[in-house]
């Protein structure tokens, strides 16, 4: 379990607080999206999660251990991070070397290392690229390698810090599929930092930050009910949310806030056309 206990953060003592008295808790096996516009504090929150930053006030607690100078390295083994730009996280000349890097660092024996590399590449469906050069891969494939490198360390929690925002639409889909698979098959706790509501639609819960405070907390479906109000916190409602809300204004009886366009169309089909 992850807990933020009255966490505040400022980058310099004379600069404004980017997070202000934030309390939150995330359960084991949960998939939570942290949403917000640039400057809302969401990336700061991500960095506090694995001790890259330490709160100015308050505490960050992972599985009953508060992150401190003494515990940070221990905690980091449980919390893997995937960053925005796949180009910046490669160290190896082949995919294999790259995934091996973290394992070598923590002294995993060779036999175990080979096993873990194959397993984690398989989890992201990149095993056949084991001996490829990372630079020749597409954005989505590079990001999957970055995920494999994290998986090989066997964390219980993975934080995706805007991991899809630099990718083309196909790459985005690949990564979202990978997240869903890992969440369902391995019960990993997944935290995605994003401003893409289509991506957030897949998570169990969303936390929306605005000016360093929690603006909303609940299911994606509940968040989407805000419709155009989402623009006030710099989020763009999805196409389907916009269409749904214009139907609602015309008093069509559509029951539930849809997450995807298939949900909306299928419900319309049942309601109006079946007879």
């Amino acid at each position, binding site marked *: 379990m992850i807990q933020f206990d009255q966490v505040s953060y400022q980058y310099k003592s004379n600069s404004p607080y980017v997070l202000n008295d934030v309390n939150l808790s995330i359960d084991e096996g949960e998939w939570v999206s942290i949403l917000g*516009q*640039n*400057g809302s504090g969401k990336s700061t929150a991500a960095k506090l999660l694995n001790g890259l930053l330490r709160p100015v006030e308050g505490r960050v607690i992972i599985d009953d251990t508060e992150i401190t100078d003494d515990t940070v390295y221990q905690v980091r083994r449980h919390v893997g991070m995937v960053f*925005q*730009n796949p*180009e910046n996280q490669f160290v190896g000349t082949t995919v294999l070397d790259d995934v091996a890097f973290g394992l070598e660092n923590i002294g995993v024996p060779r036999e175990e290392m080979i096993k873990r590399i194959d397993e984690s590449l398989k989890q992201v469906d990149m095993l056949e690229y084991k001996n490829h050069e990372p630079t020749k891969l*597409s*954005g989505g494939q590079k990001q999957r390698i970055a995920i494999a490198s994290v998986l090989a360390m066997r964390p219980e929690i993975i934080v995706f810090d*805007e991991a899809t*925002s*630099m990718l*083309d*639409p*196909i790459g985005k889909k690949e990564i979202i599929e990978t997240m869903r698979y890992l969440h369902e098959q391995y019960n990993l706790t997944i935290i995605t930092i994003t*401003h*893409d509501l289509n991506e957030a639609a897949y998570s169990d819960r969303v936390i929306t930050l605005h000016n360093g405070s929690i603006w909303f907390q609940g299911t994606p479906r509940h968040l989407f009910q805000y419709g155009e109000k989402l*623009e006030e916190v*710099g*989020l*763009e409602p999805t*196409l*389907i949310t*916009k*269409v749904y809300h*214009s*139907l609602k204004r*015309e008093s*069509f009886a559509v029951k539930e806030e849809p997450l995807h*366009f*298939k949900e909306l*169309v*299928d419900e*319309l*089909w049942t309601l*109006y*056309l079946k007879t």
Partner: protein
Amino acid sequence: MDIVFENVNYTYQPNTPFSHQALKDISLEIKSGSFVAIVGHTGSGKSTLLQHLNALLQPTSGRITLGNTELPGADHEQIKTIRQRVGLLFQYPEHQLFEETVKKELLFGPKNFGFDLKQVETELSEALQEVGLDESALGRSPFELSGGQMKRVALASMLLAKPQVLVLDEPTAGLDPLGQKKMMQLFQSLHENKQHTVVLVTHNMDDAMKYAEKVVVLNQGTVDCFKSPRELINERERLKAIGLEVPEPVEFVEYMKAHLGVLWEEEDINEQTISRTLIKHLKGGATS
């Protein structure tokens, strides 16, 4: 200035075992004052092509005419003129910023091109305002800024060099939705009000279809097609086959047509026309 490519080929590391032909027999014409998008999958040749637009790369064979300059064959002075007239905004702003302060950064280009710096200094605050930055940024280091702010500084420094052509490589990647919209609107207004030629290189089909007058589709180093967004909508299968996603609204319309039997009569596909068509359809359907 018009940009004309005639049978352009480009090969990286020719005559070596690593030789790789990135552009194959490219012919196309970008008219002065137009808004063109270049789309393609990873490895389609997009970035190689865009580097030809301001002579960072020159064709291995074939010919490019930029205004009244021809490549290959231009001398040093001519190439310098091209670099001033064709501004390039890179995908990763940190690749093009290097000065100690934003102010120095902004003055670097104009100084290099021999502009009157006193004059340029009076234009700084307006340039910052135009890209949505505060004047207080001038004294800060560009590296203290967020990704979105760095991108804006790079854009302001490009605009201060007074280019005629703006070449933008994934200008909105990594920005939040509001920032993306604002930046695209800025390019549109530069295009409409100042007659800049805009070349937008992107994998975001939504933006390409929404803002560009014509779209170049690149596939494996060749021009697959060069069409208006309206014509492209009918090429969904073809786009998908080369790894490009059609915009979400187009996909939604197809799904509605197939599953609800909606009759599509609108010319443009966007959230308003979708809502309008659905409402019309449902009202008809509900009463019958």
